[in-house]
Each structure stands twice: as C-alpha cells, then as structure tokens.
C-alpha cells in the first residue's frame, strides 16, 4: 500500500485548552490552586500528618484570594516554586517520566494538570510569579502566559517563557489572571459566589483552619467550619482510630460520629433544610475533606443499609484517612469524591455503619416519647470534634414510654399563620410543632381546665 497523506495527530493547542478546562467548575479550579498552596506549606512544615486531634501548626501560613469581574489573584507565603521546578515539572503538561515518586510526602495537591487547568479556565492573561529560597539566596521569576497568542503558535514545543521578576513580599507564589473567560466573569459577578466559595473553603479545609491556616477571600478572613457534636451524660460521640495495612504500607484511619443538630421536631422536611444539607458522612484524605455531608451509597446509605431519610437529620460522621502513600487514599482524580475501589475504604465502610446504625435506631426509638427525648437532647452541650475523647461507640439514651395514651394531632396550616401565632406566643422562629402545642395548651387552659 502507498501512503497518500498524513493525518495530523497533533492536537491543536486551542483544542487542548478546551478539552482541559471542560469538566471542571471555576470554583473547583480555585480549590485546586489552594491545594497547591496548602501542599507547599505542608512540605515546609515537615509534612506531618493532619488528623482530628493532631497536626502541624499552620498559623504562619497565609493564602489570599481576590477576584472581581475583571481579574483574579491568589497569593501565598508557602515558599514558592523553584525555577528548576517550573522548568521541569510544574508548568509542563502532565508529569514527566523522570519525576521523583511522591513518597514520604503527605500531599493532596499535584503540580501537574491542576495549575494549568485552573489558570486557563479562569482567564487569558496569566502571570505566575514565584519568590523562593535557594541555599543562601532569595530568587524570583515569573511565567507570563498570553493564552490567545500561545494557542496560535504552531511550534511543537509546548513551552512557556520564564522571565526575571521583582521579589514578592513573602517567599511564595502570586498567580494573577486578567482577560477573564466569559464563564469566570459570569461566576465572579454572581453575588452568591463569594459566600459559596468561603463556605466551601471553610468546610473542606476545616482541619487546616483549625490548626491556624489563614485564608482571606476578598479581604475577609475565612472562619473554619467547627463541626460541633452534642455531648452530655446520655450522649457521647464516637471517636476511634486504627491503622490499615496494605502491602506493608500504612494508612491511619479515624472516625468521629455523633449528632450536630437535634433531630427534627416536625415531620416537615422543608424545615431546617440547611441542617439536612450539613448532615451525613464526611470523608477526609490527608486532612482535606474530599466529600461532604454525603447521604448516598458512596458512603453507607442505601444498598444493604437504610437509605437516607430526613428523620436522620443531625447525624454527622467524619472519617479521616492519613498516609504518606497517597495512592492508598480513596481519592478520585477530581479530589472531590471517594474512590469506591480503594481497599482501605472498603475495609472501613463497615465501621462507618456502626455509629450510623446506632443513630438510626435512636431516631426511631425516640418517637416513643418525643417530648422526653427533646428534654434529654436539650441538656447536651456542643463540643468541637477537635477536642473529642476516645470512645468506642456512639452513646445514645434509651427512651421508654412513660406518658399517658397519646394520639398525634396533625393538620396542614398556612405557614404565615403559624409564624404570626408563634410571634404572638413569643417568637416568630418557633417551630410549627411548638406553636401547635402552645395553641392546644392555651385553648385547653381557657376552655377545659378548672374543671379538673
């Protein structure tokens, strides 16, 4: 056969940029950049494992995020990247074969695809500036990228120039993006985006923030999610830890489980939707929460186990996997979900079911005398998971039936009327159940008692 032509197998640069940025959101890109900064800081702090009860001191680490509908900037003081790293690893596409293995390093970020994908997704005029220590001296460089020009370049060498630059205030990275993509403009213009990003950071980096990490979003410091669980004589959260071994490699696992909100008082699923949104299982890998408030089969719910029901609202379970062998962690490539095929994760799931089952049993049991249950629940105080004491099982009280024969009174009523009556009784925030109960007792006292 004769060759008659060639099919150009080289993907064009523009096509590559489109494919690269296709399946990720602007928010996840920002979190990828944060992962890189946090990882650098972690290396600087000696790569100590980050668990619920121990971890390195992040109080000197600071990451600033600033954005509006014209530009985006992330700055950190996490040591920066060396020029050699930029030349050989950080700004290449994927990792080259001669990259050192990631052993002995507890990391979540990878200077691989994440950095390029993030900046290409956000804009077209990019500058990555680094200031770092090398031996005795302090060096700086910048990598300017004009994406519009870069995609037009027909050469087969996919390179970015590295130029001299003034030093940053701190040893670290400053990534600035202008010429925002339409999607980035749209995202940053949404009044809801800043709050959503802040809350995602507060939740996903809760362990780091608890250890002092400072993150600022448009000048406002992010307060870490506190994950407080109820504690009293009758209720105690579970806190267990153990080690899983896979081929002589170790993964440390911890579980903290309890309830963060009192069980719902009404059968109204629309009440306190925010609490239901926060309930469920959280999974952390090397300190970062990769799955939050899960109520699906990805953790325990469904399959051979009860599926999630709003009745279980309040339950909070956190499982944290820590290891220097990141390939053993149940991380997916997006770092935003769990890899169900992970051996360590499969071994841990039965242990997650124990406290969950205890909670489900309790929420069923408490229906026997909901009022008595509420009294006991209200006596508990809320304690941070970071101060939790070891306890083999989730402790819950046993509610027994002590009251007279009871019947449920149930009827629909316009929400505005309930709110108004609640206000008359003392608070517009009273639950529907409380208002109904007060209305009944009020009428009873007026019309019936005195005859008893």
């Amino acid at each position, binding site marked *: 056969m004769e060759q008659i032509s060639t099919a150009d197998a080289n993907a064009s640069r523009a096509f590559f940029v489109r494919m690269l940025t296709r399946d990720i959101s602007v928010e996840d890109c920002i979190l990828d950049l944060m992962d890189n900064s946090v990882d650098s800081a972690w290396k600087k702090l000696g790569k100590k494992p980050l668990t619920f009860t121990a971890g390195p001191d992040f109080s000197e680490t600071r990451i600033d995020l600033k954005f509006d509908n014209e530009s985006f900037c992330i700055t950190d003081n996490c040591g920066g990247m060396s020029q050699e790293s930029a030349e050989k690893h950080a700004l290449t596409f994927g990792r080259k074969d001669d990259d050192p293995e990631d052993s002995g390093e507890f990391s979540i970020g990878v200077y691989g695809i994440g950095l390029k994908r993030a900046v290409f997704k956000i804009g077209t005029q990019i500058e990555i500036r680094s200031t770092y220590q090398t031996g005795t001296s302090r060096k700086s460089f910048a990598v300017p990228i004009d994406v519009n020009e870069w995609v037009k370049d027909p050469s087969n060498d996919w390179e970015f120039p590295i130029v001299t630059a003034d030093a940053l205030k701190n040893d670290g990275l400053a990534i600035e993006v202008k010429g925002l993509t339409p999607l980035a403009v*749209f995202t940053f*213009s*949404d*009044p*809801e985006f800043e*709050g*959503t990003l*802040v*809350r995602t950071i*507060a939740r996903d980096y809760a362990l780091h923030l608890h250890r002092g990490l400072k993150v600022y979003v448009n000048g*406002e410091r*992010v*307060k870490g999610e506190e994950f407080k669980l109820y504690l009293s004589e009758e209720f105690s959260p579970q806190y267990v830890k153990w080690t899983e071994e896979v081929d002589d490699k170790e993964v440390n696992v911890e579980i903290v489980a309890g309830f963060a909100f009192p069980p719902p008082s009404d059968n109204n699923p629309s009440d306190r939707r*925010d609490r239901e949104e926060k309930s469920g299982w959280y999974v952390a890998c090397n300190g970062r929460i990769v799955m939050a408030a899960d109520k699906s089969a990805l953790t325990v719910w469904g399959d051979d186990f009860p599926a999630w029901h709003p009745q279980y609202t309040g339950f909070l379970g956190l499982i944290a996997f820590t290891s220097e062998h990141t390939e053993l962690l149940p991380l997916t490539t997006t770092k935003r979900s769990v890899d169900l095929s992970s051996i360590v994760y499969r071994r841990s799931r039965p242990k997650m079911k124990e406290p969950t089952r205890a909670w489900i049993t309790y929420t069923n049991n408490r229906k026997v005398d909901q009022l008595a249950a509420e009294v006991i629940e209200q006596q508990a105080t809320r304690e941070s998971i970071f101060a939790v004491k070891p306890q083999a099982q989730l402790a819950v009280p046993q509610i027994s039936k002590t009251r007279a024969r009871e019947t449920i009174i149930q009827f629909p009523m316009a*929400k*505005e009327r309930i*709110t108004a009556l609640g*206000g008359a009784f*003392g*608070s*517009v*925030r009273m639950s529907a159940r409380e208002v109904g109960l007060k209305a009944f007792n009020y009428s009873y006292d007026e019309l019936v008692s005195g005859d008893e």
Partner: protein
Amino acid sequence: MSEPSFKGVNYSIRPSKTIQRGLVFEGLRALREDLDWTKASYVGMGSIWFTDFVLAHKALGLSRMVSIEGHPIGFRRAVFNKPYSFVRMKEGLTYNVIPSLYEDEVRFPNNPAIVWLDYDEGINEAKLDEIRYVVESATDDSVLLVTFNANEHHYGIDPSERIETVRELFGNLVPQRIKGSRVTGLRLGNTLADLTEDVIRSRSLKVRKPNPCVPAFRLVYQDSATMVTVGAVFPRADRHSAIKRRVNGRAWVGRPSDPVIAPHLTSKEASVLQANLPLRSTLTRGDVRKLGFDLEEEQIRAFSNFYRHYPTFAQVVS
C-alpha cells in the same frame, strides 16, 4: 415618658411612604424614555385606594392594569373603588395570581410589565420565591419592584435570632461574620435591602445570562414601620447600557443614600418651608427658627431632599 404627640404618627397619613412612591414614579417616568412601554402592563396590589394605579396611569400613561387582592371583602370593595374601567381585578394571593398571569394569559407574557409586589409584612421564603419567579419570567423592558416590612420583630426577638432568620432566608449571600448591629433598627432595613437586591441580581444573572438586570431602586423609609423597596429593570439587550447610564447618573432619584424619614408637618409649616427653600444652599435650623417655628436637623434635611414629593393633606371633617 412617651413620645410627645407632635412626634407621633397618624397611621392613615404616611408621608415617608408617599415620598417613596413619588421617587419611584419619578424614576419610572425617566426609564420610560429609554424603554418601550407602548404595550406595557402595570401589576400591583392597589387595595381599595389604588394610589399607585392612578399614578401609573397619569404619570406613565399605562392603561393595561392588574390589581391583586386576596381578601374577599377587600376584593369586592376594590372592584367597587376601581379608579378606571381598564383596571382588571384579580382575587387571590400574589403567589398564585402572578404565575397565572405569565402562564395562563396570552398577551401578558409577551409584553413588558411593571410589577410592584407591595407587601405589608416582612420578607420570607414564599416572597423570595415570588421574586425569583418574576425575575425568571420577566419580558424585556420589564421592571420589578418589591416592598416589604423591615421591623425587627418580624425576624426575631434579639439580634442572634434575627441573624439566624437572615441566614435561613438568604443563605450564602450572608457573610460568615455579621454583627448584631446590622440586624437592628434602621440598619436591618439596609441589610435586607442589600440582600434582596443580591437575590434579584443573582437570579437574573443565571437566567438572563448575557443581559442581566440593572438594579435601579433601593429605598429604606420609615413612618411607623421601617419599610424597604428594592427594584430592578430588565432592559432589552440593546438598551442595557442606556439604562445603566441613567440609573448610575447623578439625576437618578431611585437610590437615595439616606433613609426617607419624613417629618410630620402641618400644611402651614410645609408651605412656609417650601416657599423659603434656598436654591443653592441648605436650610439651617436658624432659618427655620426665623420663620417662626423649629425642627430637628434630620427633619430639615429630609424635607429639603424630598420636598417635591411631600404629601399635602387636608383632613375633611364633615
């Protein structure tokens, strides 16, 4: 000691509400020059007085009008008191009537509408749903206005309760840290105005992507209750910059920087003050004293800012 009676409020006369209405219609009159309202409708809650409907017809020339009234007796009285034959009365809650206008009618959804959801009560989840619905359904050149009550007790008995309510209603639009002072007194009005505007802007960005709304109205006013009015324009794409320019211009009256708190004046006081307002400088307390009476500084400032919309009332005793 209770408030002296000359500072008290006569519920049936609400000068701040009147001024607010005057400012809104002055703004609408200006917007009319940049938008096409030849077939526009006015949708409101006229009650039995229809004050805004009369203004909408006189000032804006609108003759397609819909008034919504939920109370059965109120409805019959409203039908009786309609100022014009072309006002269509609709009985029911806005929650049901507004969607039926957009979904069940033929002409209404194809033309612009100036919709003023003028509630007496506080803002809640149902009202935010209605607001989002109108934002999603709005045709080009429409305007949405929302008025609601910003009195503290509608939202909780103390600052921490009110913060919880605000968080439940507005979710991620509320910053992580919010001070109790921002949900107290008049400031609660400002906070709720900003957050409601954010809801409108956020939803409009999502549904009208390349051509989002232009926030145009933001007034906090107080008679006996603290009230908030916010509003936005949904211009046709090619009119977007003209509207933005107008709303951001110095002559725009729809976003006064201070809350509207009108002093209650006798007609004699109001006429004398008005006749003596200097063109270029400001009226001082000394000036007022020379005129023969006295007022507090904020009252003088409020009158000077809003005298053109000041109501004149005559009480008819028969």
